[in-house]
């Protein structure tokens, strides 16, 4: 992929991209200016990826791209060509919620729910990056500082992340 030939697409042209989203490869034609968030929502129908502020602040559009969390309104769809993307839709397995989703549910870490997919995806990255035991400071500053919630005041969200850490650790010891 890194050695692929130079690609040049004019401003009025479209470019064919291949993206693996939640385990499935999709091929679509997009304008170079199309943002990843619009590609995921409009072309693939993955509406968990929310457009919040549209300026890179709120984190409601957070998805995992090639293993790291990104704000999908800050990335072009054409940049994701060849990439692996994970959205909230890809978390639950066999009808069972992911432990992070369960933790958000149990701790009632939401009110209106608009920011929730972004928070859950950012938590997913945080816990894949720093599995042992993030401190509350690490959860707040190093983890969730790029996600805004305008209803709950964050307390229950932090509690949910702590619970998710505990659950994931238990799952690991069981394995």
């Amino acid at each position, binding site marked *: 992929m*890194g050695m692929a030939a130079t690609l040049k697409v004019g401003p009025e042209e479209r470019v064919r991209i291949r993206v693996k989203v939640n385990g499935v490869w999709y091929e679509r034609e997009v304008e*170079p200016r199309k943002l990843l968030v619009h590609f995921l929502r409009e072309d693939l129908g993955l509406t968990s990826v929310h457009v919040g502020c549209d300026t890179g602040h709120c*984190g409601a559009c957070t998805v995992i791209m090639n293993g790291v969390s990104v704000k999908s309104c*800050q990335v*072009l769809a054409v940049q994701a060509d060849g990439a692996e993307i994970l959205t909230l839709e890809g978390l639950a397995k066999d009808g069972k919620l992911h432990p992070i989703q369960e933790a958000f549910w149990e701790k009632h870490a939401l009110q209106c729910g608009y920011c929730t997919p972004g928070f859950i995806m*950012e938590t997913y990255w945080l816990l894949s990056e720093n599995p042992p035991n993030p401190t509350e400071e690490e959860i707040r500053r190093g983890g969730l500082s790029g996600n805004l919630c305008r209803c709950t005041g964050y307390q229950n969200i932090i509690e949910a992340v702590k619970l998710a850490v505990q659950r994931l650790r238990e799952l690991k010891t069981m394995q």
Partner: protein
Amino acid sequence: MYPPKFGYIRVNSLEEAVKVLEADENAKILAGGQSLMPMLKLRLVRPSYLVDINRVPNLSYISIENDKIRIGALVRHHQVEVNRDLWKIYPALPETAVQIGDPQIRNLGTMAGSLAHADPAADWPATLIALRASVKVLGPSGTREVPVEDFITGPFTTVLGRGEVLGEIVIPRLSGTVKSSYVKLERKAGDFAVVGVAVMLKLSPDGSVEDAGIGITAAGPRPFRAREAEKALIGRKLTDDVIEDAAERAMKESSPISDIRGSAEYKRAMVKVMTRRAIKNALSR
């Protein structure tokens, strides 16, 4: 919000990027894109083509050598944040990284991109100036090295000429006891600095300062090196009076403007406070 229409070129080498930029002065490099995307959406920039360098191989290195550290053009802030060697050698570097934007932005945003973008409140320039770093610039007529201090010439303005791209950041390593710190005053997590001060101190065995570097951001039209403040430290032991004198001088060297992050008067006062804190924080390490 949709960005304006632009074309897209994916290159496999920086040399290729140089050729594109030389032929088309309205083309623009896309690295991390974390400042570029909002600017595109707000139509503050209207490039003809975006030249995507993200697939260029071997640009994501942090190379720690005996006398210098070399940082490739695609090194993301997060890579600096989690680099254990850098925490030991120059803690000011990862300390700067963790205070930039938020985790998602740090996963994509690059040090080189931040320098080339030259926001007058950006964090990296302060630290890189304090550490006496320079940048390697690739252009149509070859390679040149420019100190970071001279690289940024004004708000969103650098010495990069037509067809030139930033290839690497080079940070010299000093021998002996070297301490460093970056202190940032911000209104809320993830915001740009109200004022940011980075300090590097090389101490002799008797505890006096052999060499000092002080870089300041968001307190003038461009990030600057506080030379008078550095002079106040060199050759002296760091008593409270000496530190106070240096902080006072740094304040006098600053020329902030009033904006949404504070009045010029407030920011000047904060330059003094942050300089004092940065020196003390570096010393405590």
